[in-house]
């Protein structure tokens, strides 16, 4: 994991001092609401429905056990004893007091954490595959490139006041979209250039929200030396030409669509000409230095499928099911990546208590080299668990309630905080997730259904990524009442695709029965071994529409 140099720490300390001063000036009436808003957002502080909400940056999802313990401490000291894993792999606190935020930031800074650029109209936390570095299919570990982007984007003076938020994600697995780069403002796909060296296909203009779109290829096979110059060129074009007088048209996707990918490329190349081979050019030395910050853990030399594992798999069906669902193949022989499903029925997806955080930190220390990762599907990962230890890890996770074998299954629901917390919401999302989870309580049935992504957002801002759920649920407001619109066919798996609307929206009480109709139709129509999304793509929208709304219309 990237460990701070003296300057990273110094910068962070100076930032804490700056924000303390800004908060004091605000409380003393020297900064207007509007001025302070921009400053606090860039430090992760929203003011929400009931209290401020604070978003803590977790660069590309990586946490050390020390950081996890500090988070637990903070939630006890200044919040209600729990934290929330967001779809940007960050951590959110739902109940801090505004006056306490400078102290919380100071506490975070002690473990190299902060809330910098986790909200506001600036470049946000860069995300990537939660299995980075362990995924046997990846071209290379994407995290060093994410760190390089993180440093470039942090307090970049030119891009602190963009027209709107700006999200970058990096994928390193060919034929997959592990970080849903297709729906990011910039998506970076690591490829092999003609010379066999690392290069990047750079997409721009993807995004969810009001006008969901999949990004378009702007830079093809950009050599690694020019990663930052190319991204900076795109940002400058956006900063200059992005729409600023209408919040709903301000994302880069709108100008990519309006001006066309060719024109955006032309403008980008004009900037790139100036920057290319200039001082921003990445050097072999620097990339090597950053790569060295992500060393391989000191793996033992083990072999796959050890006797302990084979025996446990043979003897314990529940363990076997969990093993098949929640653990993944690993680059290193004798290891697996383990996903903890933070989707307990009756609790907001992604929520985790202080005690649980500490237990996870202990498990990470004992079994995963002291590292934990957050996933964009609001789960956590212990990425480097020895196969011989899997059974005992499973027992421990089962006790914690994080071993539900439902990874990627229908009840592994992604949901934003919604109307229970968020002041922008049209409708609640957590109770909808809960109702679905309660209805589908038969694990055999869930396994028979296979992979189904359900994503729920409480409003058009799409923090729950509803457009890319195989089944998306969006809260809408109909004359002051909470309704839900359903989309089908979105994808955020092998590719990014935007779902299509099923039809008129539903009241909250009806959502589960609608999901049930959709699922039942799939079960009736599926070919042998065909997944929900494949069946949908074969069948199209019509039969689902008919089933849900009846044939009368």
């Amino acid at each position: 994991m990237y460990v701070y140099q003296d300057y990273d720490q110094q910068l962070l300390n100076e930032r804490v001092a700056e924000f303390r001063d800004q908060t004091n000036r605000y409380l003393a009436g020297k900064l207007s609401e509007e001025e302070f808003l921009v400053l606090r957002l860039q430090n992760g502080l929203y003011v929400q429905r009931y209290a401020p909400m604070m978003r803590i940056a977790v660069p590309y999802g990586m946490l050390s056990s020390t950081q996890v313990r500090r988070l637990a401490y903070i939630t006890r000291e200044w919040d209600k004893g729990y934290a929330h894993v967001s779809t940007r792999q960050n951590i959110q606190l739902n109940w801090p007091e505004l006056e306490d935020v400078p102290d919380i930031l100071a506490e975070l800074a002690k473990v190299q954490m902060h809330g910098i650029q986790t909200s506001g109209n600036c470049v946000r936390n860069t995300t990537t595959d939660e299995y980075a570095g362990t995924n046997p299919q990846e071209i290379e570990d994407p995290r060093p490139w994410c760190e390089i982007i993180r440093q470039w984007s942090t307090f970049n003076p030119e891009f602190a006041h963009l027209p709107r938020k700006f999200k970058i994600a990096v994928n390193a697995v060919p034929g997959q979209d592990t970080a849903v780069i297709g729906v990011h403002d910039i998506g970076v796909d690591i490829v092999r250039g003609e010379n066999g060296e690392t290069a990047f296909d750079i997409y721009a203009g993807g995004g969810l929200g009001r006008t969901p779109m999949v990004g378009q290829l702007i830079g093809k096979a950009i050599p690694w030396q020019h990663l930052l110059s190319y991204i900076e060129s795109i940002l400058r074009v956006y900063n200059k030409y992005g729409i600023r007088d209408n919040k709903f048209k301000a994302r880069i996707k709108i100008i990519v669509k309006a001006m066309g990918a060719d024109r955006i490329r032309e403008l980008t190349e004009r900037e790139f000409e100036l920057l290319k081979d200039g001082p921003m050019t990445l050097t072999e030395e620097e990339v090597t230095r950053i790569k060295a910050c992500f060393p391989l853990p000191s793996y033992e030399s083990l072999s796959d499928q050890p006797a302990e594992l084979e025996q446990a798999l043979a003897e314990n069906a529940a363990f076997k099911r969990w093993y098949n669902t929640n653990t993944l193949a690993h680059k290193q022989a004798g290891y697996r990546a383990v996903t903890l499903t933070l989707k307990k029925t009756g609790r907001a997806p992604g929520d985790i208590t202080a005690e649980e955080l500490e237990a996870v930190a202990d498990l990470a220390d004992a079994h995963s080299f002291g590292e934990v990762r957050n996933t964009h599907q609001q789960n956590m990962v212990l990425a480097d668990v020895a196969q011989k230890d899997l059974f005992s890890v499973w027992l421990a996770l089962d006790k914690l309630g994080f071993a539900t074998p439902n990874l990627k299954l229908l009840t592994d629901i992604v949901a934003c905080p919604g109307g229970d917390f968020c002041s922008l919401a049209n409708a609640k999302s957590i109770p909808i997730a809960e109702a679905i989870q309660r209805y589908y309580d038969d694990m055999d049935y869930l396994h028979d259904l296979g992979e189904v992504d359900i994503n729920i957002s409480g409003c058009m801002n799409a923090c729950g990524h509803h457009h890319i759920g195989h089944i998306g649920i969006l809260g809408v407001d109909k004359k002051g009442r909470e309704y839900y619109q359903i989309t089908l066919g979105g994808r955020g798996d092998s590719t990014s695709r935007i779902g299509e609307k099923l039809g008129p929206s539903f009241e909250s009480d009806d959502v589960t029965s609608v999901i049930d109709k959709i699922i039942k139709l799939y079960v009736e129509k599926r070919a042998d071994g065909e997944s929900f999304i494949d069946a949908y793509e074969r069948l199209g929208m019509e039969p689902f529409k008919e089933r849900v709304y009846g044939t009368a219309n």
Partner: protein
Amino acid sequence: MAQLIKDGAIIDNEWTRLTVEQIEESGIPASGKIIVPLATWQSQRDEFIARGNVAVWLQAGEEPALIADDLEKLSLIAINFPIFRDGRGYSYARELRQRYNYQGEVRSIGDVLQDQLFYMWRCGFNAYEVRADRDINEALAAMKGFSVTYQADVHEPTPIYRRRPDWRVEQ
């Protein structure tokens, strides 16, 4: 006389900025240092060059390319921030310095506030008309808050990875 921050000091503002409306109403003053809108400059360019002591201000949306050919005739370009969170001016300043190699004064005007000044400086501004209702002394003092920058900027030609271990900012 109103004051501004220039090159790290607080000085009197010798320039008067004119809007299109003011010019329509009262015309161009015969003497004194004036900053005129881009459109006015473009329409009376030759008279202004003959008059001397004329600078140009760019509105957000008016990029430096529009004045690129006249830069050597201008000792000051002002860039307006209609609202502090409109960040176009940062790119404009950077372009003036780095694309056009402009050496004159680049001044921020409009909604210019303390918490923006360090970023403005990094992008190539060297003068700042801090909003009149704010304490200009406090604003100047706050500019020195950061000793670390990751990226290259107008003053620091190299990003941090090329300047380690001597990474401290010289202001």
